[in-house]
């Protein structure tokens, strides 16, 4: 027969100080764990939501990111002959591309090949502190057909040939001076005033941290003749591999990467954080398990007679072990719920980090995902079980007679 749950709960309350202290330790470990993981989840969500499985990014071989790549004009020609290159088909819906088709800015049958110019500008953060190096992308209208998840959420699309810029929703939330109607100084000298005419979303992806403006204007303002990268779309996913092989091969000699992989590689950086988190939380978790063990040993020691009495009443050994486990689980899970609640309060806040590959910042949201909650609860359970098993087994082995006799 199992012991009632109220017995466990009341036992916890009986030793207020040590229960509270153990509670705090576990809550703290869970808090740090979930906070660090929500950083990682935020960055991964942002980079993972970027790209289409049919898109290919082309860079100059050797360049590690769009921002350090320059594609010589001569190399652009052969790209139009990429096998499987898709042609624009009319899009309907609310995407920027659909809007461009409707207004005749995009025509059916145009090859889906977009030269893009990646430059940067320094913008102040809303939260203050150092200015951030924010990516500015110069694009032609065709770019909207390739990046089909780009949607204008406020305002309108920029006009080709005008000093107009549309800003990503994440960039607008994180950096100052990007309100609709405001002017942003862009250009090599920062001397051209671009008017913010629209805000766009991109399915929560990394593009939302960027500013987009007409490529010809950006090329002029930044004195840049050469494109940084070319994005192209192939007919279907099966055509990706041959297209990549063609571009990497001798007839073009550039470096092609599936777009999804390009952004996945940028997310590599978060691997370091995951490793660091695991090490830190691992050490802290072991420390916490010992703290729980100390508490539970004390709980067992001070209740020798009580436990012996329970055994004498006919409760089985496993009921005693189960009771102690339940008691500590109750404490640890409550504590982890508390730790999770505290870190969930920061979920949704915007952060940004400077990628050391692209040298531009990525604005992302801290995210508390179900996976993080599960991981945190799992760690709390492991800590609790690891800390309780030894004292619980000792309690179960008590010699009833001796324990009852001893005061």
């Amino acid at each position, binding site marked *: 027969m199992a012991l009632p749950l109220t017995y466990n709960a009341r036992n916890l309350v009986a030793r207020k*100080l*040590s229960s509270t*202290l*153990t509670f*705090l*330790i576990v809550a*703290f*470990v869970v808090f*740090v764990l979930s906070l660090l993981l929500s*950083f990682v989840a935020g960055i991964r969500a942002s980079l993972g939501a970027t790209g289409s499985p049919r898109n290919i990014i082309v860079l*100059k*071989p*050797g*360049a*590690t990111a769009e*921002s*350090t790549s*320059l594609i010589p004009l001569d190399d652009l020609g052969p790209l139009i002959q990429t096998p499987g290159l898709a042609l624009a088909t009319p899009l309907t819906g609310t995407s920027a591309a659909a809007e461009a088709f409707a207004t005749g800015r995009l025509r059916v049958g145009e090859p889906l090949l977009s030269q893009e110019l990646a*430059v*940067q*500008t*320094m913008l102040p953060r809303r939260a203050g*502190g*150092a200015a*951030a*190096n924010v990516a500015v992308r110069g694009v032609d209208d065709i770019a909207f057909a390739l990046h089909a998840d780009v949607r204008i959420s406020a305002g309108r699309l920029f006009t080709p040939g005008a000093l107009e810029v549309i800003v990503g929703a994440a960039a607008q939330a994180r950096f100052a001076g990007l309100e609709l109607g405001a002017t942003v100084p862009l*250009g*090599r*000298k*920062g001397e051209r005033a671009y008017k913010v005419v629209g805000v766009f979303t991109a399915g929560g992806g990394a593009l939302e941290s960027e500013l987009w403006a007409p490529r010809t204007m950006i090329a002029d303002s930044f*004195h840049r003749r050469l494109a940084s990268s070319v994005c192209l779309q192939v007919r279907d996913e099966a055509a990706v591999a041959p297209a990549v092989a063609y571009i990497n091969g001798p007839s073009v000699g550039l470096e092609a990467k599936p777009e999804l992989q390009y952004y996945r590689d940028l997310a*590599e950086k978060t691997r*370091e*954080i995951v490793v660091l988190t695991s090490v*830190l939380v691992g*050490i*802290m978790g*072991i*420390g*916490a398990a*010992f*703290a729980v*063990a*100390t*508490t539970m*040993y*004390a709980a067992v*020691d*001070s209740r020798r007679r009580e436990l012996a009495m329970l055994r004498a009443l006919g409760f089985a050994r496993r009921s005693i072990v189960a009771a102690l486990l339940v008691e500590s689980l109750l404490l640890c899970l409550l504590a982890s719920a508390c730790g999770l609640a505290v870190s969930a309060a920061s979920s949704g806040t915007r952060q*940004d*980090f*400077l990628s*050391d*590959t692209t*040298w531009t*910042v990525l604005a992302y949201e801290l995210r508390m995902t179900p996976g993080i909650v599960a991981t945190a609860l799992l760690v709390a359970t492991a800590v609790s079980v690891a800390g309780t098993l030894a004292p619980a087994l000792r309690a179960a082995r008590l010699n009833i007679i001796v324990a009852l006799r001893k*005061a």
Partner: protein
Amino acid sequence: MLILSYLHRNIWRNPLRVLMTGLAVGLPITIFVLSVAVVDGINRFLDNSARQLRLAITHKSSIVYPLPAGYRGKIEALDHSRPITVCAMRWIGGKVEDKPQPLSTLAADPDTFPATFPEYLTDPAERAAWERDRQAIVVGRGTAAQFGWRVGDRITIRASVPPYSAIPFHVVSTAQDVVDPVTLFCRGDYLEEEIKRQGYPEGLVSFFFAKCRSSDDLEFYRTAIDAHFANTPDPTLTQDEKAFMSQFIAQQFDLPRNLTILSALTVVVAIIAAANTMSMNFRDRLAEYAALKALGFGRALVFALIQFESLAICVSAGALGALGPWYAFTYTPLRRFTVPLIQSLDVRLAVCAQAVGIAAAVGLIAAAWPVWLAARLRPVVAFRALE
């Protein structure tokens, strides 16, 4: 003597509890040492930058825009009464074929590099090799250890920016005594040839470093340079080296700030764990303390008993917890573990000593509540409460 033996036996009355408390205190101290070591490394890096009287001159709009190489002559000619050594830097990043880690390679003006960065090439033989060999490259000690490079090795680095080609170099120095363990410096004239060969625009640099003779000169040039180039197509932003470096650090997850918060929190955890044990010990020995008091021993003895036990446990656990990472990062393969920015982690004994001090504080604070209870303990009440 009797007291000492009593103290000693007190600690080992419940070996299991002592052991577990030691671990619950020692492990947070380990984390404390690791995070403080990282912050310490970053701070020493920045303090070294601050001492160097160097200015970093970048493009005003963004660090990624190049400046004309000719700016060097103009800066040098600004004020002849205030001599300044200017070294142009061209960032080429770089990668070793088939290795994922990005490098941080800078191509420097070969003539002014030794004067601008006097902490490098202190060995006359290395200096001579730098001046003689166009393919010379100075490799930070952390990077050298990571790739197993030694002085005299031939290495090939593929540039991440124009000219994008794989360039052969000769390692002339592994900069053993320099604070920055990461950066590689090659010769700008050699890179310029490669750029010319590949047909990319010449005469551009990423930024300049300028070494001033005095802090007065530094203040002068900090404003004079920007004022001089304000109305050119490429205006400049001049900052001292510390400000220049800290902007990168602040944007990479703000490690110094976040790790300081983390280390403070781990100390709190250690205090909680130790306090838990000490209060349990106190409860267990209530009758004993009451007896001591009844026998006429004063508060001082009870106070000393509890504090000593707490201190002994925390300080020894703290010492073990601190020396663990020190040993691991000084004598084991973990030495090669890479940390963002400062690359290799030096756990200095000073940091360990600080951690032991913190552990002592943890011990004192953890025992505060039991000591307070013990001081107020009235033997009559205590005895009556016993079963």
